[in-house]
Structures are given as structure tokens and as C-alpha cells.
């Protein structure tokens, strides 16, 4: 009696597992997407919309672009990379790890100097020369293109040397945001997309850094060799170029290349 009940349970469990395997092997496929931290929020909305329109699922992994690159070189199972720059996808193509004909610009990022206090920031970034703050947070410039752009901006303003002792470095742009949002750093260079939605600043005060103070943050995507013939990987790249995706990307404060 007892053992027969157990075998029934076992059979039921096996059927369930088999069912799951069959479902997952159906028409809808899954794609592993490595996404630069700054694009975390839009990537998640895009993944939801992608699932609605194509039935495929995009599984998002986040990290600084440099970190994702290192992981890809060490065999990480990502199939598409959404980098925060153009250099990393180019390097991966050169190294034979990515497919050249899939490379595309999915967003152009804007850097913003942000504080959670409503009256701290002025409209032209004077705070950097006047220095009424204790800590200025930036993303690690070696790893995060937004961090590199922040350093270029400070250099262009001639403020880097003077402010160096006040800089705190975060491992990626999301941690930079966290440092500022928690008030531990009074100001920080973050991505515009982290603090605005539909062109409205969500909290605090911000100075949108003029685009001529740093190299443009051109964010490129590329399909990795690992994707093989996964239809979802190609579909994801095609989806990123669609009008509905563009609408979502713009609503998060990114620009798009004029096509």
C-alpha cells in the first residue's frame, strides 16, 4: 500500500517534470541577455514587452560592461550583450566571440550629476567648482563607461585633481545610484535613465551634463557566438530595433541614433 502510493507520487512528479521540459522546448525559446547596469530598468520592461509580442523569454543578467566582458571571455552562458559602450562589442567581434552582422546601437546614454536633495543642484553644474558637498560618487571608470564619461567631464571642467580626494567609486552605475540615493554621497554622476521617467525627474535635483563634455555614450548590442541558432537571440535584436522598443527606451531618458 505504502510503496504503491509512493510510486504513484513518483510517477506524478516525473510527469510534471517531463511536462515542464516539453513546455520549455515548445515554440517559445529563451535567450540569456547580459545587460549593462545602467540599462537595468528599461531592459526589464523590454523583456516583458518582448515576451508579449514574440512569446520568447529574455533572461536578464546585470553587471558593469567590463565585468560582463570578462565573464563572456571566460565562457559565461550569455547569448546577447547589451553593453554601455561601442568598444566592448567591437572587441568581442575582433576576438571572434560575437557576430559582426548583429551589432547595433540600441541607445545613446546621457550622463547626469544628481543629488537626492531638491535644492542642491544648479542648472549648470557650478556645484563642482563651488564644492558644497563631501562625497562625489562615480562608477569605476575602468569598468563602467558612465564612470569613464564622468571622469572625462571632470577633466573637461578642470575639476578632477581638485575633487579627487572626494571621489568614491562604485562597482557599477547602479551602486553609484545607491550611494547617492541613500544620501551617503551628496552628489554623483549617474545615468539619466536612473533618475527620470517620461522626461520627468523622479526625485531630487539634477544637472544634465552637456554632451560635449564627454565622448558620446553609444550603447551597442551584439549577439554572441554562443547563441548558435537560438531564434530568440535574433528576435531580441530585431525587437530592440522596433518602434515599440524605441518608445520604451526613450521613455527611460535615452536617445536613439537618427536613422
Amino acid at each position, binding site marked *: 500500500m505504502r510503496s504503491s502510493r509512493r510510486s504513484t507520487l513518483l510517477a506524478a512528479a516525473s510527469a510534471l517534470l517531463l511536462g515542464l521540459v516539453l513546455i520549455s522546448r515548445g515554440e517559445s525559446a529563451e535567450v540569456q541577455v547580459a545587460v549593462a547596469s545602467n540599462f537595468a530598468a528599461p531592459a526589464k520592461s523590454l523583456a516583458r514587452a518582448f515576451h508579449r509580442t514574440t512569446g520568447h523569454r529574455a533572461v536578464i543578467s546585470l553587471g558593469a560592461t567590463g565585468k560582463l566582458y570578462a565573464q563572456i571571455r571566460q565562457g559565461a552562458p550569455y547569448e546577447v550583450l547589451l553593453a554601455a559602450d561601442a568598444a566592448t562589442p567591437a572587441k568581442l567581434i575582433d576576438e571572434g566571440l560575437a557576430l559582426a552582422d548583429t551589432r547595433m546601437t540600441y541607445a545613446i546614454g546621457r550622463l547626469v550629476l544628481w543629488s537626492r536633495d531638491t535644492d542642491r543642484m544648479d542648472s549648470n553644474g557650478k556645484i563642482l567648482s563651488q564644492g558644497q558637498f563631501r562625497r562625489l560618487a562615480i562608477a569605476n571608470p575602468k569598468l563602467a563607461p558612465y564612470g569613464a564619461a564622468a571622469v572625462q567631464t571632470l577633466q573637461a571642467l578642470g575639476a578632477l585633481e581638485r575633487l579627487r580626494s572626494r571621489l568614491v*567609486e*562604485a562597482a557599477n552605475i547602479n551602486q553609484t545610484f545607491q550611494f547617492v540615493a541613500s544620501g551617503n554621497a551628496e552628489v554623483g554622476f549617474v545615468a539619466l535613465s536612473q533618475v527620470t521617467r517620461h522626461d520627468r525627474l523622479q526625485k531630487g535635483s539634477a544637472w544634465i551634463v552637456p554632451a560635449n563634455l564627454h565622448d558620446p555614450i553609444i550603447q551597442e548590442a551584439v549577439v554572441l557566438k554562443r547563441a548558435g541558432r537560438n531564434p530568440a537571440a535574433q528576435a531580441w535584436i530585431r525587437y530592440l530595433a522596433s518602434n515599440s522598443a524605441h518608445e520604451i527606451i526613450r521613455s527611460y531618458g535615452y536617445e536613439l541614433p537618427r536613422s
Partner: protein
Amino acid sequence: MSELLNNESGSAIWLTLQLAIVTSAVLLLVATPLAWWLARTTSRWRGVIIALVTLPLVLPPTVLGFYILISLGPDGWIGNVTTALGLGLLSFSFTGLVLGSVIFSLPFAVYPILYAFETLGSRPLEVAATLRAKPLDAFFSVALPLAKPGLLTAAVLTFAHTVGEFGVVLMIGGDIPGETRVVATQIFGHVEAMEYEAAHRLAALMVAFSFVMLIALTRLRRRAGGALP
């Protein structure tokens, strides 16, 4: 040394050692009375306090670090206290790291000492009392010397644990050279930037160091008859 390791590494190593020494010292001062109380109390809060002390052992360091960061900030209670005392905010500072490390390594200090006090039993103190030793005197001249192996184990463990600490430092440190950039975060930075050569050198040093510390610990334990938690 200077050939093997550049200035950057040297400063990170020195900072790490300072952090580990200060943390171990603070923890011995905090954990000894706490363990003494835990070993002898019959309070119904004992279980709750034990659970709180153990929490850093099971929580992911990044979670711990995140909440420490929030507590240290202007909205957090620690931040409020330090600002009221005129110290400003402790995040991104060496003092902040010490605070984080003390919380992070608390169970590693409390458990060996607690174990030592518990195995002591009440007998030696009763004997001391019949010899008319005051409780405080009995604690310092009887209980502490007898618990020495536990204290040593606690010191070595917290020292080693602090040297290897990473998640908490990453969350509250801000990677400032000479202030909060310790060996573990330095290695992380090298690995992330694919400076594997530099990462390897530091990592090798760290492995060797941890190994020596653990050997020292077992030697200590064998000689003194103490115990690991």
C-alpha cells in the same frame, strides 16, 4: 616586497592589516562581556540575543552591507547618532569599515569565548567566591585566564575573517585608496578590469596568509586545548 608588489598593493595590504587589528581588538572588548553574560544568564532574551549575534553568519554580506550603508547614511540611525556627535557620516571611511567589520565578524568572536566560558562551568567561580574574591576580581583573575584559549581563537578567527571580508566593504567602502580599498576589493578591481597578473599576485599572497593563519590556529588549539566554534 617592493619588486613583487607595487605601491597600490602595499597600501591595500597595510590598510587591511590595520582594519583586521582594530576590528579584532574592538571585538574582544565587545564580545567578552557579551559572551560572559550569555554564558551565565537565564534571561528569556538569551535566545533572541544569540540569534542576533548569529545573524551576520547567515546573511549574505552584500545584504548586511546594504543595510549598514543605509544605517550609516543621513536617514539611518547610526548616521543620525554620528552626525549628532559631530562625526559626520561614517560611510566611505575607515571608521565605517571598522564598524561594518565588527558587525560582520561578531559571531566569530562571541562563539569561541562563549564556548570557553560555558565549559568553565560555575565551579571555579564558586571556589573563588569561597576564597572571598569579589565577582569582578573572580572574573579577571579566574574566568579570563581559564578562557584564554577561547579568547585567542576568537582573536585569530576575527583577524582572519576581517582580512577575507569583501561583500560588506564593497557595499560601504567606495573603493578609496588608503582609506577603504582593502586587499579583497583591490583583487576584485583587478579581476574586473582583467588585470589578472596583478590579481594573481595579490590573491596568492592572500591564500598563503590565510593558510598560515589557519595552521597557527590549529597549533594554538592543540596546545591550549581550546575549540573552534
